[in-house]
């Protein structure tokens, strides 16, 4: 088979994205290449993850002043760091001298971060504080080495609901401007989120493109078949779609059932919630890669870490309204949610394998049931078209 001319390839790709950006009932899904092509994975990393506010970690990953956690995100070596005054920032985990990785393992920085190569030292707020022998043996200064300009390179970050969002490009509008609609929607939930601790965090590795995890999470259409345990108390008709074009999408229920122990104890509620939250719960995918769940007595965040075009790591964190919660009840809640999210793995991985089918046209959407998923596809297609525009 001869190679297609470049123009035809471009036109085909553009036509495919235009087909996505149609009304939900007639739209096609994103083409296979968006799930199978390593090159397109990199293009999407730029258009969807580096130029937006992507979820990287949670501030609870560095709970104490001096805590440092190295994180590789989209191949970039980053450092999540809580300084001595308690401020959490994200830096490039790289010495400004010769580019050496500074912190190899999560640890507490007692004083300064010392580069293991030539011992340049940085304060926990990123300032370069000493450059040993840079001017010769025993001379720690040099005319062309201006420490004030050689601090750690900070990555723009914003913390919301304990989630550390980053804007790699530095060009996105402020987080509070971009996500004003969801911040307003959940204003009643704007309360301290107490991470449940080590037993309230787990990871799941999924052999699929990260977008498939978003697409599955934000719809309720699959619940009766993939999560049959919900059928007894949260039927399909108890759920409704949430669609915020170019922002977020998800689904909600009118019949959230609180977890209780044998004695009838339950988690404390968040304070002063409107009546909706008595039995309501919302599950929203905040584009690009953060999946959120909110209930009257606990919340969770799933951060999708794209490892490759066909591999994703899901970082799940559970939060409570109070710092003090029953350990057994917490463990039961974590186990319950872990079971639910594990039930999704086979469909997400199955869709990934399905994308190798030649001739699969991206699929179709149920206007009644798939609007949240199509909303995400439309966001992807919009950003990809904008990125390709001359």
């Amino acid at each position: 088979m001869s190679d297609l001319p470049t123009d035809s390839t471009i036109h085909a790709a553009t036509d495919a994205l235009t087909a996505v950006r149609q009304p939900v009932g007639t739209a096609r899904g994103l083409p296979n290449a968006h799930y199978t092509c390593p090159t397109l994975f990199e293009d999407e990393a730029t258009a969807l993850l580096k130029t937006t506010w992507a979820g990287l970690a949670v501030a609870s990953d560095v709970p104490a002043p001096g805590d440092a956690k190295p994180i590789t995100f989209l191949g970039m070596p980053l450092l999540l760091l809580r300084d001595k005054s308690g401020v959490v920032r994200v830096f490039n985990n790289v010495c400004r001298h010769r580019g050496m990785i500074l912190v190899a393992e999560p640890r507490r920085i007692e004083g300064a971060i010392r580069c293991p190569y030539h011992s340049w030292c940085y304060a926990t707020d990123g300032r370069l504080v000493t450059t040993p022998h840079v001017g010769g043996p025993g001379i720690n200064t040099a005319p062309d080495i201006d420490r004030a300009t050689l601090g750690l390179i900070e990555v723009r970050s914003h913390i919301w609901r304990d989630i550390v969002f980053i804007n790699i490009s530095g060009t996105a509008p402020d987080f509070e401007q971009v996500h004003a609609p969801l911040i307003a929607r959940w204003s009643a939930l704007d309360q301290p989120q107490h991470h449940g601790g080590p037993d309230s965090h787990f990871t799941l590795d999924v052999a699929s493109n990260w977008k498939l995890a978003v697409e599955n999470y934000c719809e309720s259409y699959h619940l009766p078949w993939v999560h049959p345990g919900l059928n007894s108390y949260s039927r399909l008709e108890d759920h409704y779609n949430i669609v915020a074009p170019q922002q977020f999408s998800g689904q909600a229920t009118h019949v959230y059932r609180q977890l209780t122990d044998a004695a009838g104890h339950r988690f404390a509620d968040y304070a002063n919630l409107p009546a909706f939250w008595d039995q309501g719960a919302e599950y929203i995918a905040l584009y690009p890669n953060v999946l959120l769940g909110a209930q009257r007595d606990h919340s969770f965040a799933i951060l999708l870490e794209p490892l490759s075009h066909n591999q994703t790591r899901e970082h799940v964190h559970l939060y409570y309204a109070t710092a003090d919660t029953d350990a057994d009840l917490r463990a039961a809640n974590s186990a319950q949610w872990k079971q639910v999210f594990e039930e999704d793995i086979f469909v997400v991985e199955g869709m990934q394998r399905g994308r190798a089918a030649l001739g699969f046209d991206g699929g179709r959407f149920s206007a009644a049931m798939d609007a949240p998923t199509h909303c995400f596809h439309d966001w992807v297609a919009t950003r990809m078209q904008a990125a390709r525009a001359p």
Partner: protein
Amino acid sequence: MRSLDQRLCAAHAKNDISTLVALYCEAATAAETTTQKGFYLTHAYVYALEAAHPDALRLHAQLCSLGKEL
């Protein structure tokens, strides 16, 4: 009694920061030239900085007085 070199190597092997600070200060005291003194004081200072050792400020001041630090 082990030589200073031997004691330094032992402290490095154990990553014993407090001992490293003390030993590099000892080396600085015994140094014959200002360059050598600056070299050893720098090592003591860097390890003290890293560990938030109480001598970090004093060592910084010493290096500044020698014209070796900012």
